């Protein structure tokens, strides 16, 4: 069965620190990969997505993620976080052409000013 694992449940960083959030999935076939962000009190918004081509994808607000097929990973990175990045981050995996999107448990990021 398809599953998604986010390793870091709660991350606390100071402003300007670098960020990397881990995401691994279990599914052997073709996947579409997503990172969504949920700011406090808001609904989920797409940060970035991968479905083909260059495995290094860039999203909004300076975020990027790298798809490493051999490691079944899609880690999210940002070189320098800001206080406004405080939010919950969800990794999502859609297997093949089913359209069924499964999320990881989420990572709460707290950025201290």
């Amino acid at each position: 069965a398809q599953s998604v694992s986010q390793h870091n449940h709660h991350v606390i960083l100071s402003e300007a620190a670098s960020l990397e959030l881990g995401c691994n999935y279990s599914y052997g076939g073709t996947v579409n990969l997503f990172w969504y962000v949920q700011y406090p009190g808001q609904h989920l918004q797409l940060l970035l997505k991968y479905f083909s081509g260059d495995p290094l994808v860039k999203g909004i607000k300076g975020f990027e993620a790298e798809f490493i097929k051999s490691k079944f990973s899609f880690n999210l990175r940002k070189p320098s976080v800001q206080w406004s990045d405080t939010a919950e981050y969800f990794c999502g995996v859609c297997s093949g052409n089913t359209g069924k999107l499964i999320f990881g448990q989420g990572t709460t990021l707290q950025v201290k000013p």
Partner: protein
Amino acid sequence: DAGITQSPRYKITETGRQVTLMCHQTWSHSYMFWYRQDLGHGLRLIYYSAAADITDKGEVPDGYVVSRSKTENFPLTLESATRSQTSVYFCASSDDRGNTYEQYFGPGTRLTVT
């Protein structure tokens, strides 16, 4: 551009009552989804639908019923609400054109079962 809407936004109900959460999208997306968000569990898929009259179970379907008679609507019914169903419920839709399946989320419904 209305997008995707959910109603009600907040609901308090009693154990054993039936409650229906509504979801409506204006994009004619073929796929629609229901998730619940709980602390420590992230987002869990309850049910999804690939098209009108086609629905399938997700990760946590027990205690829920869905229907999709029209493409734009995807109601979620709790037939006999339990306290464990207290949660925030998100509806989402996605388009399979281009095979990207990017999902768009509604604002959520906060349900409390007393």
